[in-house]
């Protein structure tokens, strides 16, 4: 799999995602000021972090970086795009995914392990999981409270575009298992054509049994199997 990880000023999880992707190829880091992706790119990853210090709104300034036109063209061709945490925030600001990520309902930066339920396993991002599976991943964000107008939420739900929901260890979606107040406990969503995924949790941090578990591996293995 040819993966390109976009590096913005203030990104800080690019090393983690490169490490996760190395099991499936040789990912390249691409500086945000570039205007083209490496030839043959299968997957673009927007990593986590605090691009531009979260100034103005999380992801708002990175969404206007020179490389983003190439990311839009890649997605329009059906290419795969994965936005993790700040990368998800960039994708909604950029308009590749609908909605917005607001301040967590409890106003706290939340950094801990969290279970999410895999809503469907028939996508290029989740084929190595099974539907309804509760996977343990890390969350680390202050603005992960997914919100959109009622019409947009109804459309996303109707089209089966919710990728992951916050849940307890048994896969139950409950109010107390929702860490940040997200509408319908949404932790990640797909684009209309299911080739773009944005999610707040960090699967790239759960790839080694030495540091908490390997539930994140499935996402990268799914992508490798799809290209």
């Amino acid at each position, binding site marked *: 799999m040819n993966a390109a990880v976009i590096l913005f000023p203030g990104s800080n999880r690019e090393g983690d995602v490169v490490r996760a992707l190395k099991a499936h190829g040789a990912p390249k880091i691409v500086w945000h000021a570039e205007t083209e992706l490496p030839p043959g790119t299968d997957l673009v990853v927007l990593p986590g972090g605090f691009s531009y210090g979260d100034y103005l709104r999380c992801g708002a300034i990175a969404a206007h970086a020179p490389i983003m036109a190439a990311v839009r063209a890649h997605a329009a061709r059906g290419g795969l795009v994965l936005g993790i945490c700040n990368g998800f925030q960039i994708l909604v600001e950029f308009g590749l995914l609908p909605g917005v990520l*607001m301040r967590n309902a409890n106003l706290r930066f939340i950094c801990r392990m969290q279970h999410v339920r895999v809503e469907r396993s028939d996508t290029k991002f989740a084929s190595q999981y099974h539907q309804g599976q509760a996977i343990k991943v890390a969350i680390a964000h202050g603005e992960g409270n997914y919100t959109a*107008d009622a019409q947009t939420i109804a459309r996303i739900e109707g089209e089966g575009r919710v990728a992951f929901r916050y849940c307890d260890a048994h896969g139950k979606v409950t109010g107390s298992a929702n860490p940040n107040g997200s509408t319908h406990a949404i932790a990640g969503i797909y684009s209309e054509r299911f080739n773009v995924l944005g999610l707040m949790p960090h699967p790239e941090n759960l790839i080694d049994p030495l540091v908490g578990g390997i539930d994140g591996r499935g996402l990268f293995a799914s992508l490798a199997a799809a290209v």
Partner: protein
Amino acid sequence: MKARVVVTLRNGILDPQGKAIEGALKALHVDGIRSVRQGKIFDVELDAADRGAAEALLREACEKLLANQVVEDFQVEVS
């Protein structure tokens, strides 16, 4: 020319920061405040021939960057 752009959360959008400030004011016994919504102010200096041109430029700035119209509204005041 100088102008001020005010960006606020749309009505109906939950504003956890505003709520926290509201609670803090209550805790400080600043009584009589019914609710607080937090927003952003941008003071802008610009080159524009006239008021109309300035307002058009600032609207473009808001639509492209300063406001996220999924959840925010903006107001432009040219002085």
